[in-house]
């Protein structure tokens, strides 16, 4: 088949793809940003955050788990879809306890960066204020579940890359929470290491290295300098890993 046959459109723009790629993968490669949180180019698509929700041939679906097909007509950067994405972000904010000004991840956090990008002005709903523990038992990392957005990137990284299964999502509904593979349930008693892939994939400030507080001052961090949209698309252009 020719290149033209392996192509579809996003918001009217033609995008080429390699068979087997998802809509999100093809879009990012083409320099088109579709908001996403639980997707990471190095891992199998997961499809839980739903930030990447798009409309494909009239059907709403997640761009990260939907295969690209020739001739698809995809809508993404539309006011209605962006308003849905803002609502999803607000849900993630009120579900946990996110105090951005006091968070070491501020400026490097994908949740915060997307909120800026999608012009989410406030959390809108009453916070649930869940009681979630902070686990500082590990010498090299802090696990602060107040900020966890259940994307399971750490779960996938630990299982698929580190070969360890340090993390898993437990519970149901709003009671969903991360659990750690150790007798005490503490990170310090698990096989987790600072060099693990799982130590560096968290898109928010739930898994943070210890002893590196505010090495880069706020204002000079990744998403302080350019929006997540520019950043991700820029990386795609150079072929580098985000």
């Amino acid at each position, binding site marked *: 088949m020719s290149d033209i046959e392996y192509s579809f459109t996003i918001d009217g723009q033609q995008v080429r793809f390699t068979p087997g790629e998802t809509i999100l993968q093809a879009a990012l490669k083409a320099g088109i940003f579709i908001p996403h949180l639980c997707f990471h180019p190095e891992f199998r698509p997961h499809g839980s955050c739903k930030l990447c929700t798009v409309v494909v041939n009239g059907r*709403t679906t997640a761009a990260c788990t939907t295969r690209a097909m020739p001739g698809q007509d995809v809508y993404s950067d539309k006011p209605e879809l962006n308003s*849905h994405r803002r609502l*999803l972000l607000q*849900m993630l904010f009120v579900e946990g306890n996110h105090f951005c000004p006091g968070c070491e991840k501020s400026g490097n956090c994908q949740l915060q960066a997307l909120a800026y990008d999608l012009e989410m002005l406030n959390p809108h709903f009453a916070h649930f204020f869940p009681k979630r523990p902070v686990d500082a038992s590990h010498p090299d990392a802090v696990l602060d579940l107040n900020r966890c957005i259940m994307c399971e990137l750490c779960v996938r990284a630990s299982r698929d890359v580190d070969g360890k299964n*340090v993390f*898993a999502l437990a519970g149901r509904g*709003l009671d969903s929470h991360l*659990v750690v593979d150790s007798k005490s*349930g503490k990170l310090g008693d698990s096989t987790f290491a600072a060099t693990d892939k799982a130590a560096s994939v968290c898109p928010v400030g739930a898994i943070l290295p210890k002893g590196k507080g505010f090495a880069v001052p706020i204002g000079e961090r990744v998403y302080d300098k350019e929006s997540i949209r520019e950043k991700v698309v820029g990386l795609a252009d150079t072929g580098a890993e985000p």
Partner: protein
Amino acid sequence: MSQSVGDDGLPLDQAVESILLRHQRDPACLVQILRELQDRLDYISPRTVQQLAAKLEIPITRVKSTLAFYSFLYDEPRGRYRILFSDNITDRMLGSMALYRHMLNRLKLEPGEVSADGLVSVALTSCTGMCDQGPALLVNNRAVTRLTPERIDEIIGLIRAQVPVSAWPAAYFKVEDNIRRADLLLNTEWVPGAALQTAIERGPHGVLAELKQSNLRGRGGAGFTTGIKWEAARKTPAEARWVVCNADEGEPGTFKDRVLLQSYAGSIFEGMIIAAYTIGAKRGFLYLRGEYTYLLPSLEATLADLRRRNLLGEDICGVEGFDFEIDVHVGAGAYVCGEETALIESLEGKPGRPRIRPPFPVSRGYRDQPTVVNNVETLCKVVEVMLRGGAWYKGQGTRQSTGTKILSVSGDVERPGLYEYPFGVRVAQVLEDAGAIEPRAVQISGASGTCLTRREFGRRIAFEDVPTAGSFMVFGKGRDLFEMAQNFAHFFAHESCGFCTPCRVGTSLVASILDKIGDGHGTEYEMNELAFLSQVIRSASQCGLGQASCNALTDTIQKFRGDYERRLRPIDFEPAFDLDAALGKARAITGRDDSGARLSTRVDIDQ
């Protein structure tokens, strides 16, 4: 683990070993293992979690995540008598909440609290499928039906006297079939092996042809054509294939599968055996909802009978190489496990979180191999098609919805129970037959279904008009549809598996907004919030649970807006943070409660 001897007469360690042995230390049986261990140990302690992980050679996180997912698995003591009141709207219409509060008061307990002596806890649970004989409760997973204040008092007496549940009066546990209108399925006596014999004579391709001709469609909700589903599983190259009967029946207001499991189990299993013959499966599962655990012994007895007749086992009916076995897996309180991919996850011993589809189970299901999942009623229908032939079957019901459908009728009717009709029956006909009492609305197909007003009672039960998985709840004059929507909203918030953002957080937001309106603090603002939330939850959710979670809400707002409006305050918005309530402490300390000590006067709504 300490060495105490249990009901099984075995010391604890040995009992645990025998449970593990029975399941061949297979982590895929984790849900079954946890359930059986809990029966023996009362609850699953952190120590048990560690030991289990070690013995099954799996990470502790795997045990923990499964343990924390299911409502009927406990990681802390829940009392020796665990009472769970069924909390469907139909239980409430029969006065369950008064009984619930009465029991809590008499036992001096808060909801969910375990009494100080570790004897008893009382809480709510999702619909237990006894709507035609409610209000109902579960005591240590056994259903008690037709509750009355007297019966509650007797139960309290039995608990205080520490009488084992096995010695409680048998009448408590009587579950009636209540078959009110029988047609094709409910009227036909099962002749063991007769349908299978015709299937073998037709051969697998003949069976598929017959099923396709009959246009039999799944009775579990989605209405997928059974013949096409089976053919897809048969065509997918694989080392092994599987047949699963979906007996999770969690949809509020549905109880027809319970009757089929209780009195027509032979037909169900024979349908599974025909499926196995057709697609080439060696093993199958019946996934029984935890609420129906009481049916386990009779189901096992039917399976034993089938083995004796050589309808199960090896070289079935003398056909060389036709080997098939069925295991019953018992669920542990999770509505989402009725969704076929979540069910498969649960069968594999994991939390019941739906998978991303495609791939569909027919190509990658249980153990990533082709799997046919069918509803209980669908499998009984397969037996009918085999006995009567596809051409005859096609003539029953309507063109797009062939055959008959069993409805579970409950609510404000004189004769609640099962009603079987040819597809195409009008809602009004069902209402008349069941003796509906001045019906104001009918909620069809459960909490995720459709709400019909009086003007719509002329509509027909059929895939092409009002599709249904079987639930038919009638709301008489004076019933408040807001209360139904609020009850369902809490159901979905409780049952959301938590995988995807819109459903995990959205269903809880909807429930809390409805509570705000219910408490008389809602305004037009909340109504707009609900509209936007339901739009996003419906379109962005991963599976049918989230997608359908706002159906009743949207329907009732559209059709019974008055039930909402009379609760709304005339102002545009009232903040979720209630300053006046926050001042309550100061009022208590100062002993003041005059209007000067209040910021607003609460409008009380009479219920």
